[in-house]
């Protein structure tokens, strides 16, 4: 079914599900960045990807060009997406400051050096 959906995509408009797929890929890439990057800044970039992936969903749900039936999120989707962008920026600022502080204390940006607290 999925394959046929993709095949028709050239002639039929994309739906929410297609946007969500892109969002899911970005979300998972971000999560994997957070889980595999040893550079703290890489982890922060992962956070950006994660939030952006989730944000794509709101955009898709808010768009009237994508839905066919079912409850409409309408304007709420765009507005929430806007706020998420702002919140992500705020979070990035703090996380970056924390990473710099970590760097000052550890002389390294490697998150694997954060191993004193355990047990």
């Amino acid at each position: 079914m999925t394959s046929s959906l993709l095949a028709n995509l050239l002639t039929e408009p994309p739906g929410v599900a297609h946007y969500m797929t892109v969002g899911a890929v970005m979300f998972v890439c971000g999560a994997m960045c957070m889980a595999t990057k040893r550079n703290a800044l890489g982890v922060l970039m992962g956070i950006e990807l994660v939030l952006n992936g989730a944000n794509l969903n709101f955009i898709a749900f808010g768009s009237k060009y994508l839905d066919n039936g079912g409850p409409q999120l309408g304007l709420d989707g765009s507005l929430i997406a806007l706020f998420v962008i702002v919140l992500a920026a705020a979070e990035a600022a703090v996380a970056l400051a924390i990473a710099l502080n970590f760097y000052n204390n550890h002389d390294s940006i490697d998150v694997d050096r954060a191993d004193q607290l355990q047990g």
Partner: protein
Amino acid sequence: MDLTPATALPKLLAAAWLLPLASFVVILFVGKRLGPHGKWAGYLAVGAIVSAFLLSCVAMFAVWLPNHELPVAHHGEHHDEGDQHDGAPADDDHQHGTAALLQDAPLTACADHDSPFQLAAFQENEAHADGHAVEEGHAANPPPTYYFGDWYSLGQFGALKLTIGYYIDALTVTMFCMVTLIASCVHIYALGYMHDELHDPYHDHEVIVHGHHLHRPGRFHRFFQYLSLFCFSMLGIVIAGNVAMVFVFWELVGICSYFLIGFYFERHSASTAANKAFIVNRVGDFGMLIGMMALWASLGTFAFGDKQDAKGQTVLTESGAIAEPGIFSQLRTAENGYRLVPPASMIAEETRNDPAIEAEDAAAGKAGHWLLLVAGVGIFCGCVGKSAQFPLHVWLPDAMEGPTPVSALVHSATMVAAGVYLVGRFYPAFCPEALLVIAIIGCITLSLAATIAITATDIKRVLAYSTVSQLGYMMLALGLGGWIAGLFHLITHAFFKSLLFMCSGSVIHAVHTNDMTEMGGLRKKMPITAYTMLIGCLAIIGAGVPLTPIGFSGYFSKDSIIEQAWSHAQTNGGVYWAFLAMAVIGASMTAFYMFRLWFMTFTGAPRDHHKYDHAHESPRVMTGPLVLLAIFAIAVAWPAFRLTGLLEQAQPVGTAAGGSGVLIEDLVVPAEHLSHAPNIKLRAGLAAFSSAFIGVFGAAVVYLWGYLNPREIKQTFKPIYTLLWNKWYFDQLYNFLFIQPALFIGRQIAAFDRGVIDWFLHACAWTVRLFSMVFDVVFDRTLVDGTVNTAANWTWDFGLLLRRFQTGSLRQYVLFIVMGTWFMCLAYFAAAFVLMS
């Protein structure tokens, strides 16, 4: 002075209850400054508890007894009032209507009958035997006379009302007198026993610090401070008017025992024992919490009694129903003839609303009984912990680490008594199946502890196990339907067990050891101790002239337990005879180990001459209480003092007639008075006497006359001896079953949190490692380049790999978020799939 019971009793007993608290508070704040080294603190505590005793005596002799006629005989009484009640089942004002009956009916109808113990002398006529047959079918007894009310309301949370209140009946008053009397003796005795603590610094010979004995400041006042708090807490349990208050004081008793058992906390064994006592008790309390919840949730109240007005009359609503019924009146209503019937709120809603199920359940009569059983067994769990019943008996012998006066108090009048008391108090709420559980636990406990006591050589441990065993007797009696028998034994046991402990303390004080194998021949050195202890031993084995009302206190109470067991066995037959058998064999073992103790300590040749030479009789302040208690141990149960009559006044509602099981259909709890039938009395009395005699004789053969060498006996029965010597390996078993797994799980979880997910990740890591090794060998080495020292890198990588699983790695945490989400979804979908298909 106004001596109306409804107003005077709460005041008198509250005063008696709060005096120890006052003493505690005073000592807490200014204890150290009371006289040299806090010496006056002891006098203060003694003064408080003795005053409490006097107040209790006033309550008993000036208020209770003049206003409440003792039932002269109890046989016909139930018969009469039962019949009357059957005639007028709609009588709503049951409490006072029937309370009046309780007082009047026996006088008129049965004045010619005699007290139960005169029955032992065959003064009973045939009419009684006939009476039993008739009594089988009639209704149970109405609630006893009691005074119930609240002093102070803690708070109301919706339907949950928490108050500090009282519930005073004959049992309460009796317990007050008993507890305060024994506590007074213990306090006075402790003045002498704890004398060493007045020295500053105190030398603790059992603790070695830096190669020297420990020197520390004396803690005389601390001891009396805790002792006062302990008495306060125990009296709080006794007077408590509701379950929540019982629980509060229950825990307070636990905390006090923690302090007192750990009094010599510098000794490692003492602090461990204190911990053990506390934690084991908590295990029981958790059951009790569940029982409490079950009762509260289904009955909506914690109160024991019905709401009363200032005159002690039950408050009724306009329609004539009880305004605020307590637990007991809800479980045993007058409409149901005071039989235990689960009220509607105990029956699951769907059952109530579904006529089909309801009819089926009503036919079987089972609805709500499971909840009753849960509540009963839950409450009993708390009692198991406090009264050191199997399987939570392990703390009690270790609690011997406390000073001996504490042991005397803990083992007789307080703490362990609290468990039995609570079973007695809750008696109307126990369904026959719960009683069976109680009986089984009691039976196991009594035999288990008795066997261990036979091999113990520490004088206090023998007594400790004997306590556990006697508590088992009480539980057994209660579980078999012998309410009076159980509580009767509780009171007599309190006297002789405190006597025995204080005697042992006196011996320990003299020879500075607990080990009986280092004693012997002390009779000549310390005669008062020796003979008072002999009285204690005779009392505990139940010595008396069979078939006559002549004997020590234990004779009466233990005989009534065995009679009850006999009656129960006769009614139910089959395996239920085991209860009787264990009770009789236990009596024999009791006699054996008690006299073994006495012979080893006081007779024969001294085994350790150094210790023998230094031994001396204890000072008056210690022997005085011994003599006093000895007198009580002899006489307290004599029929002339009508102790059973007093208890009978408090017989909880509807329990005199026994009952029959619902979940186990052929289980019958016989009415208690049936056990006084002459044929049972005769056989039980003879069995008890002969078993005790065999026990004493056996002990004499081995330890007095020395016909048999105990060492050879040990050799012959080595496996059994080892088993008993190691206390049936219970400590080891618990260590293996609970402590090790708990520690293990704790460690595992800590390790888990450190980053080891589990073997799965390890396996993954290994697989991956394997893959990359192959990959490395195939490509890296051949294709990419000739890396320097690949093997060294592997090792290095491998070390990092392993180490990483041991660290609190941030990246793994993130991975756990993903996997956690995923596994939760998976679990949910799997569950949904299973449920749907």
